[in-house]
């Protein structure tokens, strides 16, 4: 230990002191590159073991849907199951659901899926077995969903369809326990007759029957956009459809994935019946009726200003009416819809229904009725005093000046209006304008206006005799 002893770290003389008074290095505690090399070897050993693990494990481990909860929000998972609903198409996205039997309750084992920029042959349909990978969203208090971004993240085993009948499905279905059905989430082929359609905002639900039982067929509107055509079904078409069987609110529902999977085999003809011959014996029968539209009466929903249905009087006001729901009317083209008016001759298929103490024919969709334009004006009444209770339900044309107007309050909705119309002879009659017509008029009639009204003589609460127009065009301002 001489004065010339130098620090092995900084090289300065230490006079023998340790640690080095210059740099603090303590040569009693040191490691060498060998120490690092040993660590490297151990690390490489781990690397080799893990590489072996990589070579020997390849299966993806799916996550049970029932175990998904907000604590794994945003993580990426595999989900394995059967497609239980969909696909529904939006803008650049296809939505469906996967069921994996990981819980007793259907809702707990079902996961909605959003598949972005879908590639057609990778879009699953109900009944397909699917192994899908994507990002999970499961926000606290929010809805769970899986988001798939790449077609390669979907592994599909397409289901083979099995032939069956509507009766077979319905006879084995338990609404309180849909999962017990042998057909749930299976792909089936069956034949049925179209007996109706219920349009929704994003889809149409057709009713198919095999004469014994009925079943619903769900067709998402996005399919029309995708295929750039409509399904073109008509009531009484006999169709063969291959689709998956899903459920909605416990009831079975066929889900059509592609228009190519539905073929119209034939079309039944409804028996032609004179409208005036429609009677109670025909209730629940589908018939073909026709006639000239004498009057179109619009009915409101009562809870808002929307129309709920139109009631058509054909050939004679005493004939059974034809009712058509507004959403069925909306299925028609604008041109055809405009033709459903007074004077048009119409031929349509309808379902005979009881209506109070009488019967009426309910328009069943989907159909394109035969429409021939025409005109009709009910007889004109110049002396309003001649309109009495004996004229109830008759159609009249009246022209007069509005001498008074009053509102009939209906709670939070806009009021109905009652106009007093005076003829040239001083007689007057009340004209009832329901709010769903009044609010649609560009310039409703006011006191002093001379108007012509085509309407039905009827009574309303508090007023035994009023004339009620059917549609907006039944009221014309003359001056």
């Amino acid at each position, binding site marked *: 230990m001489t004065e010339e002893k130098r620090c092995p770290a900084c090289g300065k003389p230490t*006079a023998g*002191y340790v640690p080095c*008074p*210059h*740099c*603090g290095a303590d040569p009693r505690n040191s490691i060498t590159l060998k120490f690092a090399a040993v660590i490297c070897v151990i690390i490489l050993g781990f690397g080799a073991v893990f590489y072996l693990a990589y070579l020997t494990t390849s299966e993806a481990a799916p996550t049970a849907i029932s175990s998904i*909860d*907000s*604590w794994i929000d945003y993580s990426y998972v595999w989900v394995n199951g059967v497609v239980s609903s969909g696909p529904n198409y939006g803008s650049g996205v296809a939505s469906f659901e996967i069921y994996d039997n990981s819980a007793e309750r259907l809702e707990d084992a079902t996961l909605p899926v959003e598949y972005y920029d879908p590639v057609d042959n990778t879009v699953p349909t109900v009944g397909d077995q699917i192994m899908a990978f994507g990002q999970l969203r499961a926000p606290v208090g929010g809805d769970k969903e899986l988001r798939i971004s790449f077609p390669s993240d979907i592994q599909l085993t397409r289901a083979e369809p099995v032939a069956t009948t509507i009766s077979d499905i319905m006879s084995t279905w338990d609404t309180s326990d849909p999962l017990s059905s042998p057909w749930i989430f299976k792909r089936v082929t069956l034949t049925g007759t179209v007996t109706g359609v219920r349009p929704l905002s994003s889809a149409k639900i057709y009713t198919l029957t095999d004469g014994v039982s009925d079943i619903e067929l769900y067709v998402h509107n996005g399919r029309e956009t995708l295929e750039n055509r409509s399904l073109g079904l008509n009531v009484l078409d006999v169709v063969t459809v291959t689709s998956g069987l899903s459920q909605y609110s416990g009831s079975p529902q066929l889900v059509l994935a592609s228009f190519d999977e539905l073929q119209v085999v034939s079309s039944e003809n409804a028996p032609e019946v004179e409208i005036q011959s429609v009677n109670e014996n025909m209730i629940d029968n589908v018939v073909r009726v026709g006639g000239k539209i004498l009057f179109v009466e619009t009915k409101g929903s009562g809870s808002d200003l929307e129309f709920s249905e139109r009631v058509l009087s054909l050939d004679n006001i005493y004939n059974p009416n034809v009712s058509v729901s507004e959403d069925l009317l909306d299925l028609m083209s604008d041109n055809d819809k405009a033709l459903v008016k007074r004077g048009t001759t119409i031929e349509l298929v309808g379902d005979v229904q009881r209506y109070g103490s009488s019967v009426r024919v309910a328009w069943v969709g989907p159909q394109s009725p035969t429409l021939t334009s025409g005109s009709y004006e009910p007889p004109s009444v110049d002396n309003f005093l001649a309109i009495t209770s004996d004229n109830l339900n008759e159609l009249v044309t009246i022209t007069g000046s509005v001498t008074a107007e009053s509102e009939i309050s209906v709670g939070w909705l806009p009021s109905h209006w009652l106009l007093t119309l005076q003829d040239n002879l001083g007689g007057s009659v009340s004209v009832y304008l329901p709010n769903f017509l009044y609010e649609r008029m560009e310039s409703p009639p006011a006191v002093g206006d001379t108007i012509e009204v085509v309407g039905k003589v009827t009574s309303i609460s508090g007023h035994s005799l009023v004339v009620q127009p059917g549609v907006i065009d039944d009221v014309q301002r003359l001056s």
Partner: protein
Amino acid sequence: MRGLTHFIMGITVATFFKSLVTGAILTDSWLILLGGVFGLLPDTLDFKFLVYVEKQDVVIDPDPYDVKPQEIANKIADEITKVGTMKPGEMRRLQMHTMKLGPDLWQSYSIYFNKAKSQVEVKVGPHATTSGIPAFGTEPPADKALGVAKFTPKLVDTHGRATEVKGFGGPSFGFLKKKDGTVEVVFIPFHRRSGHSLTMGIVCALLGYLVSQSWVVFGVIIAGWTMHIVLDTFGHMGNNLFWPITKQRTSGLYLVSASNPYWNAFTVYSCIAIILWNMNLYNASVSPAYTIPGISALGPAIYLFFVVAIPWAIVGAMYYWYKQKTKGARPFELFAPTTGAVGMAATDSAGVQEQEHYYEIDEKPKPSIILRILGVAILAAIFVVLFIFGPSW
């Protein structure tokens, strides 16, 4: 203990309060942090406020370019002698200042209270960096290296070794006249007094209650504060528990060393384990998605046994083996003469850790075993109370 240990211990006791944990989840309440804030607050008060408002009876502020160790020693010895003539309970405070030569260069000096010879020894060392590396060749000449001054009364010094003065602010000493006529050296007398009393904790808790009108807030403040006091009592320097009724610091229980990294790490790890236990337990009342029933089903005792006791038994065994292996080894081995300024500089070089077992002090207090057991029992009792009653708070 280190600040983080206190803070996390405060958070730990706060997580026993079910309403605080569920409130944090459901309403993003931050009240749970009060445990941590008030768990650390005693040291915050001491080192951010009380240190600056401490009374300074005498100030030692040497000239770094002309250090006179004899003058320093004389001044200190005079103070000790003066205190010896005062009434019991009275204290004189001495502030030592550092001598800065540059941004990272200090003129080091040390003070040693030599009880055996009743003298103060002030040694001037070489220039040194903040981390203690001396600048070789800057030792003072022999006539300016040492100052020795005698004092009269019998001195009690529980620190037992020289105090280095370099880097940032210097330490303060209190010289306390005791009833038996001796004078005790109190290191940094401002520390662990009013700011570390249970009475101050109660005051803070009452203030918290007044502001929030919530007994839970009162409870979490007092719990966090109390745990700080308890942990500090486990060390060497005690607390003034009932200030202003009691005047002086008690001695600690000498169960742990506050700066010992293993005790700190152990405490932090155990706290995290307990926090996770409480989270898992109380998350269940918000959503089953956030809880693992299997862990709660174990019960706290088994959980702590497997998660805390076993790992730390292994680490403790390794630590004990290491300590046995390095027992007796001094941090510095001197291969050169120990006399002269150079030798003194080498002896007193800084950058030393974990030295306490190298110096055996005759007068090092040894609290009775009963007191030590009582201390541990109090800590255990606090946790038992928290485990039992926490779910209802």
